[in-house]
């Protein structure tokens, strides 16, 4: 359900996979599945948590755990990363496989997409090779129904020999049955024998020879057939792990050596085909056989609908215009929608300030304390709530709707060519989109990029797109200095167009800096990758709106209290403590002033950006506070008064433009930097992530400022 307070901000810094039981008797259930099959939705529904869901593959990158009780048992549910396979070719696959293999969960739920069950069975079969305690959850039955796909769940269960439950997790359908099945498996009441995938005759023969020897050595600690397969595959890390757990050197055992040799001989007899190819072919063919007469496809109309939409969204003629149009539309709705509540909130809050301050004074509180509380803390809070909150609360659900519908992978598809030219991965477009919500979340999302080089580039350039906390600053600047504060349609469209251009500049900078990095310190060729374009889904509009407004509003309010209030206090103190003739605030801003003026800003603006390091939402409020405390205007109020205030302080259109550019490109907020440190594990790259956008911003602002001066000089 969009970025939630769990996936943004500090909580996006996850803390690894440690199973935390609430009670020693808790049973462990792992939830596995291909990417984008609704694993997180199943998880959320079972545990009552709000893990981020969205219609694109790979978005669950952090491991989550939650708790779930049935009449019989209580469970710790572990949401392991979505993978196509357990053959451990990526970090996620390794985590998933090791969890299923070594943590010995009491049951593994493998969530499948009913719309492409055959492919999903690949993972089911691989999981069943490792453990017998599998429950298959065929999710998205509602979507499949719409597409005319009918699935004989019972027949599949009979063929697989494990419980299979049909579900539509978004509406909660089938989840009670799912937990019944989990109870049965976890308690050992399930009595059918799970099947094993059937490989080609040669490999089966080799396994048949090897298995008895392996069975003897692993003595039931690990499944014999699977261990035999792994011995043949000879993945050194996995085998070492198994040996450590067994306490014997499996590979060095003379009997074992001989048996493995024999098996390899059998394998080499029928040609040179790669062992992995054999395994995968076996899995795919087994899945194909299972689905052959149990999954029926009705009409093909559904494919037509998706194709028609894709024709509009990704075709040569309309792909880019629609993409930019959608962006502009989202921004326009945000600007128009935020206008009214913003005015209303500021009226109410500043009306209340006067009344409250009066009340407190009358109650006999000392004047300095009242001033500190109201001119300091209250005011910054009020600015955050009235100016920053409304655009954030509107942009967020709109963005989430696009995400839920499945549009983001299309953006990646459209932009992949540009990213390839910069020698990076198209999935970077996905993480860039996430950055619009929250840069910290975008950076965690970079885990979907497999190549370490490309992931690092995506991390370093993520903050070139403005996060939700910076949008309102940009909107405010545009409204105040470029299109006027009129309510008319032309004004709002003008704002949306300007904002869109600014964001396109951010995207351009992302590409340019990515290319620069690819050609210098992070040299390399673009790595191969595949991108899944999931079927479009109708977003749950009501749920998205309610959820993201709630989550978002509360989150921002919480952060406002945590960050803006102390910042307001700090400003007040700085403005009221004097050394000699000047206040500390003046001293500080004057110190920054010469440099700030070089890049078209002034000392106060730069000071506000520095104080806004914990959260971008407070930059503008802190700036206004600082101007106010210098006593030019004492009565804050509507947007127009802010404009007057800024003009009194020497603002021109150039200042506003530089402010926007600097807001777009400056150091990432503290949470984002912490996330970068966590994700890269390196202070050096964290510093680079700090420096890159800052340098780019300073250069851009310097350029703009001097160009406008030049133009004025010539004219």
């Amino acid at each position, binding site marked *: 359900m969009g970025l939630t307070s769990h996936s943004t901000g500090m909580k996006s810094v996850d803390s690894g996979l440690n199973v935390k039981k609430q009670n020693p008797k808790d049973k462990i259930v792992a939830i596995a599945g291909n990417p984008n099959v609704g694993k997180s939705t199943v998880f959320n529904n079972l545990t009552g948590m709000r893990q981020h869901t969205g219609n694109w593959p790979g978005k669950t990158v952090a491991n989550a755990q939650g708790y779930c009780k049935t009449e019989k048992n209580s469970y710790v549910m572990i949401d392991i990363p979505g993978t*196509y*396979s357990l*053959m451990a*070719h*990526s970090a996620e696959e390794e985590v998933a496989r090791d969890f299923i293999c070594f943590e010995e969960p009491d049951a593994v739920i493998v969530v499948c997409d009913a*719309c*492409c*069950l*055959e*492919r999903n069975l*690949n993972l089911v079969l691989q999981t069943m090779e490792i453990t017998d305690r599998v429950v298959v959850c065929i999710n998205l039955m509602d979507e499949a129904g719409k597409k005319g796909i009918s699935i004989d769940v019972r027949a599949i269960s009979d063929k697989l020999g494990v419980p299979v439950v049909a579900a539509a997790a978004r509406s909660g359908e089938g989840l009670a049955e799912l937990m019944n099945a989990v109870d049965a498996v976890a308690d050992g009441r399930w009595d059918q024998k799970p099947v094993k995938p059937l490989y080609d005759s040669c490999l089966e023969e080799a396994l048949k020879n090897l298995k008895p020897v392996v069975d003897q050595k692993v003595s039931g600690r690990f499944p014999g057939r699977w261990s035999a397969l792994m011995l043949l595959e000879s993945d050194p890390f996995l085998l070492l792990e198994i040996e450590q757990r067994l306490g014997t050197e499996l590979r060095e055992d003379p009997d074992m050596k001989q048996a493995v040799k024999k098996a390899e001989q059998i394998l080499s007899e029928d040609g040179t085909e790669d062992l*992995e*190819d054999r395994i*995968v*072919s076996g899995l*795919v063919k087994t*899945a194909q056989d299972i689905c052959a007469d149990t999954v029926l496809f009705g009409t093909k109309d559904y*494919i037509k609908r*998706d*194709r028609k939409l*894709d*024709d509009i969204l*990704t*075709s*040569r003629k309309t*792909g*880019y215009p629609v993409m930019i149009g959608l962006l502009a539309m989202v921004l326009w709705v945000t600007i128009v929608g935020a206008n009214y509540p913003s005015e209303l909130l500021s009226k109410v809050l500043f009306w209340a300030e006067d009344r409250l301050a009066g009340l407190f004074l009358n109650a006999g509180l000392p004047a300095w304390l009242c001033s500190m509380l109201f001119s300091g803390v209250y005011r910054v809070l009020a600015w955050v709530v009235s100016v920053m909150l409304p655009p954030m609360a509107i942009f967020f659900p709109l963005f989430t709707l696009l995400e839920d519908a499945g549009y983001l992978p299309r953006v990646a*598809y*459209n932009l*992949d*060519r*540009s990213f*390839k030219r910069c020698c990076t991965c*198209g999935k970077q477009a996905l993480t860039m989109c996430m950055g619009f919500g929250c840069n910290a979340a975008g950076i965690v999302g970079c885990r979907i990029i*497999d190549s370490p080089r490309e992931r690092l580039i995506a991390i370093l350039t993520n903050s070139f797109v403005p996060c939700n906390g910076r949008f309102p600053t940009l909107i405010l600047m545009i409204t105040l200095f470029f299109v006027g504060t009129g309510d008319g349609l032309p004004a709002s469209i003008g704002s949306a167009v300007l904002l869109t251009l600014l964001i396109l500049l951010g995207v351009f900078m992302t590409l340019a800096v990515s290319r620069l990095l690819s050609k210098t310190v992070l040299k390399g060729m*673009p*790595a*191969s*990758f*595949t*991108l*899944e*374009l*999931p*079927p479009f889904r109708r977003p749950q509009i009501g749920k998205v709106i309610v959820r993201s407004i709630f989550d978002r509003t509360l989150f921002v309010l919480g952060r406002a209290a945590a960050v803006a209030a102390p910042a307001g206090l700090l400003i007040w103190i700085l403005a009221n403590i004097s050394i000699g003739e000047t206040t500390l605030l003046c001293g500080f801003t004057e110190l920054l002033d010469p440099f700030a003026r070089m890049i078209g800003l002034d000392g106060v603006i730069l000071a506000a950006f520095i104080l806004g390091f914990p959260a971008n939402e407070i930059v503008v409020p802190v700036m206004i506070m600082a101007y106010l405390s210098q006593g030019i205007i004492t009565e804050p109020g509507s947007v127009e008064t802010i404009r007057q205030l800024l003009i009194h302080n020497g603002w021109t259109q150039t200042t506003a433009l530089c402010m926007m550019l600097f807001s777009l490109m400056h150091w990432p907020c503290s949470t984002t930097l912490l996330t970068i440190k966590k994700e890269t594990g390196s202070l050096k790259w964290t510093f680079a992530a700090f420096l890159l956008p800052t340098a780019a911003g300073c250069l851009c602002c310097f350029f703009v400022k001097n160009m406008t001066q030049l133009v004025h000089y010539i004219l």
Partner: protein
Amino acid sequence: MSQNCSLNELNPGEIAVVKELKIRGSIRRRLLDIGLVKDTKVECVGKSPAGDPAAFLIRGAVIAIRSEDMKDIVVRI
């Protein structure tokens, strides 16, 4: 008519059967994982606005693949 060619010669709307994966490395794994083994049917469903990557319907899912990777996938139309 049937002929062997590489996947990037497929035009939108055309259907082919995979004959050989000449591609190596991690991408090969990825393709096998999504079910692109020998004798799998693939349909080209479109190309991105810049002409690359292209999207293919493979076992019920739409997967985008870059042209460098497509050229090492031999199919028969």
